[in-house]
């Protein structure tokens, strides 16, 4: 059971980041630039899509970083280093 905890934390942090990203998309991309909608709708939608992709990449990168960090630390705790 004890070894499940860090993995659950990795899972929950991945989920939490997904939820936070949604919230940020809402606040930064759907609510703030409404004044710009009349100016250029296409540009705004391209910006929204690009920001969504950027958040996805960031999500994957953070997830990967956390995982690698956990793996290396857990192995080191056992006295094993990656070769």
């Amino acid at each position, binding site marked *: 059971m004890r*070894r*499940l905890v860090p*993995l*659950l934390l*990795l*899972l*929950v942090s*991945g*989920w939490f980041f*997904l*939820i936070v990203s*949604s*919230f940020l*998309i*809402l606040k930064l991309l*759907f609510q703030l630039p409404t004044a710009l909608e009349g100016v250029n709708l296409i540009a705004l939608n391209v910006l929204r*899509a690009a920001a969504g992709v950027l958040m996805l990449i960031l999500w*994957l990168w953070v*997830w*990967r970083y956390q*995982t*690698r960090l*956990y*793996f290396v630390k*857990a*192995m080191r*705790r*056992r006295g*094993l*280093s*990656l*070769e």
Partner: protein
Amino acid sequence: MSPYMLASLPVFSFLLTYFLVPPLARRMSRRGIVGEDIHKLDRPKIPEMCGLSLWPSTLIPLIFLSLLDPPRAHFYLALFSAVVVAGCIGVRDDLKPLNPKVKPALTAAAGIPILLLSAYSPSPHLPFIGGTRLTIVYPFLVLIALAVTSNAVNMMDVFNGVMPGTCAIVTFTAFITLLVLRRTTEAALPLILLGGLLAFYLFNRYPARVFAGDSGSLFVGAALGSIAIIGRIEIVMIVALMPHIMNAYYGLSSIGRLYERREVEERPTVMLPDGRIDATKFRGAPITLTRLILAQGPLDEKAVARFMAALTAASCLLAVLTIFLIPGMVR
């Protein structure tokens, strides 16, 4: 759809799979279509491609439902065609392994029937945001989704009972979600798959008597992806499938390219003389979910499978929680 009809679907698919697996396994053994169970000390030869038993138990109810409910027949036929396309790719891969770069592209093609039959709605619901309009991007996302789910489920099929066990949990979550959303017609889709998966689990659990093969895992993965799209529960299914996606993504990102298990020189795990499995310390080996679980110390195969099931159950709880963060989804 009446509750009796809904309840009879998983019973039918359970019984059909349950009675199909033994003769199929005998046939595969006779034809020499067997795989080595590499996580056992004696490395027994187990009949492969027995995931084919899930085909009739899923496809027959879909034909029946499409005849019974013509206005929604395109949904059932879209799922039918998508899983058949993915399953056929699996059969080809079982008999003659495909190039690891070609396989994801081919599995993406499983999404084409969904697009052709217009069995999707290009407005996924996101947490906090609610319904969005992705008319241009969504069809591409359908293709990507099918490639991701089918390959992620396939990559998770590494230990006895893990594929049917974890996918049964995800399928049950899809069913609960659709019930909560009062989409009872769409709720029939995961139920059909669930019955077959539970029956298959009885044969595939530790110590496995049959293997699903790619013909089973790609079929199930494509079914889960299609249910997410047809049922309009994309985000819920992404969260429920997080351990599968995690496993696939960790492997791909640590290797840095698409790869096939067979071509990896530095294996992520090693078998100890006492029968337990441990993580290897090779830097070049993929950091899979199994290797992460074993990072703290060796475990037996049964325990690793239990860990994977526990992680899937946790992600499914998060998935159900996610429904309540989506505005306008629960009425």
